């Protein structure tokens, strides 16, 4: 008997018992929808936690490498060294970007010299490694970052002091201590090109391009404190990458000891973040929920097997008639097995459809809660395919015993069953 014919017969048999078939499909659909939705709910929860922690700390999976000189002081680290270290980190496969600070590097009111906020020098790729929630304007681009363009991206509290984000855009602020470098070197000052929401845990510094901060350091003889944000890579966390970089760098500095004053010493300040810990807790809860759902699916499978055995029992004579009419034992086995697989796959598809609807609702709720469209994970296609495969497997497992029993029924006994 061809596969198409078996499918056709299985469908005919299933549709001849609509109530039983619908109930079975609903049972399997609920199981599959539960597993899929709970797994996805865990993803949503992880994403939500990560998002909230990231908003609060501004530090996703990123470690901080603190650069000082070999004397331990915060002596000036020149552009070449910063470029060298960045290139060296990236050569190891680690995304890295410098963060330059100096005590008197600030943005000020150009008229009164009022100190408005501290400033840090960063590269244009900072938003790749550290959360920067722009509420107005833009971050400075690569060209501006390379050419020491007089631009600044300010935190929202500062923008509020300037009349709000919209009013702040385009304003010119002074950079550096009033009356000294800011007025001497910056002329019209730095233009506000963007406003961002600073992480909750930080007061918020304004961002200026790295070359601008370096120029400030060189002109004012201010020592720059240089740190590198290092991101995760190939499944390793930022902290692991930073540790590897530090170890690698230690070996490198021994081999090139001629680099004396500017020889950087890297010091990892990274530790497991609260975000990491919360994500691990959520993962554990996710696994637990998935196990609970899987157990319910197993219970459903046993119920399905029970119903199928009963259905086979009810159809004993029909099976006998089929055998008498030319069906082989294999035909009967395939027929019963296909019936259960057809029902469970139908249940799996319905369950997947329900799960997609539920997960879209969850994702929508997450976007509303976080006000961040990128925060919601999409239901991975792998989970969908896995669900349908699980449904088919449930069908095979729950149908196997009844199918075997049906195919082994002695024909004469089957015909005599009333």
């Amino acid at each position: 008997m061809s596969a198409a014919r078996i499918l056709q017969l299985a469908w005919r048999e299933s549709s001849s018992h609509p109530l039983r078939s619908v109930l079975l499909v609903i049972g399997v659909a609920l199981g599959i929808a539960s597993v899929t939705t709970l797994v996805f709910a865990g993803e949503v929860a992880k994403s939500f936690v990560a998002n909230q922690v990231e908003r609060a700390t501004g530090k996703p999976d990123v470690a901080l490498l603190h650069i000082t000189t070999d004397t331990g002081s915060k002596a000036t680290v020149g552009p070449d060294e910063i470029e060298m270290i960045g290139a060296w980190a990236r050569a190891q496969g680690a995304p890295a970007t410098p963060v330059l600070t100096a005590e008197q590097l600030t943005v000020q009111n150009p008229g009164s010299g009022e100190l408005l906020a501290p400033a840090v020098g960063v590269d244009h790729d900072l938003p790749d490694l550290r959360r920067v929630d722009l509420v107005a304007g833009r971050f400075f681009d690569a060209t501006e970052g390379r050419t020491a363009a007089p631009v600044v991206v300010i935190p929202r509290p500062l923008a509020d002091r300037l009349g709000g984000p919209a009013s702040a855009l385009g304003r010119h602020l002074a950079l550096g201590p009033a009356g000294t470098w800011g007025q001497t070197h910056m002329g019209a000052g730095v233009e506000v090109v963007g406003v961002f929401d600073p992480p909750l845990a930080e007061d918020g510094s304004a961002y200026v391009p790295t070359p601008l901060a370096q120029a400030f350091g060189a002109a004012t003889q201010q020592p720059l404190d240089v740190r590198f944000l290092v991101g995760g890579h190939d499944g390793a966390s930022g902290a692991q990458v930073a540790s590897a970089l530090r170890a690698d760098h230690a070996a490198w500095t021994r081999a090139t000891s001629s680099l004396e004053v500017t020889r950087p010493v890297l010091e990892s300040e990274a530790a497991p973040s609260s975000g990491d810990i919360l994500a691990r807790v959520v993962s554990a809860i996710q696994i637990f929920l998935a196990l609970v759902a899987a157990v319910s699916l197993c219970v459903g499978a046993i119920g399905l097997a029970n119903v199928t055995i009963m259905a086979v029992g009810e159809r004993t004579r029909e099976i006998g008639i089929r055998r008498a009419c030319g069906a082989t034992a294999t035909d009967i086995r395939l027929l019963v097995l296909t019936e259960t697989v057809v029902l469970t796959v139908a249940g799996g598809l319905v369950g997947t459809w329900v799960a997609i609807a539920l997960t879209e609702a969850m994702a929508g709720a997450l976007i509303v809660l976080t006000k961040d469209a990128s925060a919601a994970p999409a239901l991975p296609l792998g989970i969908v395919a896995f669900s349908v495969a699980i449904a088919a497997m449930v069908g095979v497992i729950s149908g196997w015993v009844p199918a075997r029993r049906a195919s082994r029924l002695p024909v004469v006994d089957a015909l005599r069953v009333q």
Partner: protein
Amino acid sequence: MIAVEGLAKTLIGPAHELAILRDVDLTVAAGEIVLIRGRSGSGKSTLLFTLGLLDRPTAGTYELDGIETTTLGDKAFDRLRASHIGYLFQNFYLMPRLTAWENVVLPLDHASTDDRRAGTAWANELVELLQIGHRLHHVPSQLSGGEQQRVGLARALVRRPRLLLADEPTGSLDEATGASIAQLMTQVTHELGITAVVASHDTNLFGPLADREFAVADGTVRELAGRP
């Protein structure tokens, strides 16, 4: 067509053994119609089930159309049954949820695509021949006993079997309907050259239609020499 020698069927229970058939020798030529008669419980049905490859004997040999069946594996056994044998049952054994037409073509569910195509064309001829063409869309519960047995006969013949086995085919019918079914069955088997083995206690009905008669008693089978 059929050559049975020393055939026995014994049911083995936990406490004792029950011999249903003992040392049965039987030959039936191709195209013959043979009547097996005997009282209830004499072993007629068991003999028919064994001849129809629905059951295996516990001893002896059974050659069907030149093929020794007792040594066949399960698959070959099933295939031989599907290709050579058609059944007609006392209680019709129609699928209750299927229409008359679906019941007629039921054996084609398990045939190859080519056989199914050819079988469907033949089924259309059969239903006209058996005068049930106007009842094809009815389910068995909507058919009379005679109509159900005609559907059963069409189903038994739809794969053009070499051997038709009928177990009390008129047992559930009134006399007139039974006579018409017996007449129709013998007519069709003669026309198609099918060998038929009929188990029935109604010797008045089938006796005149059969070429030979056998009597089953206490598990043994003997041919009746003098025809009534």
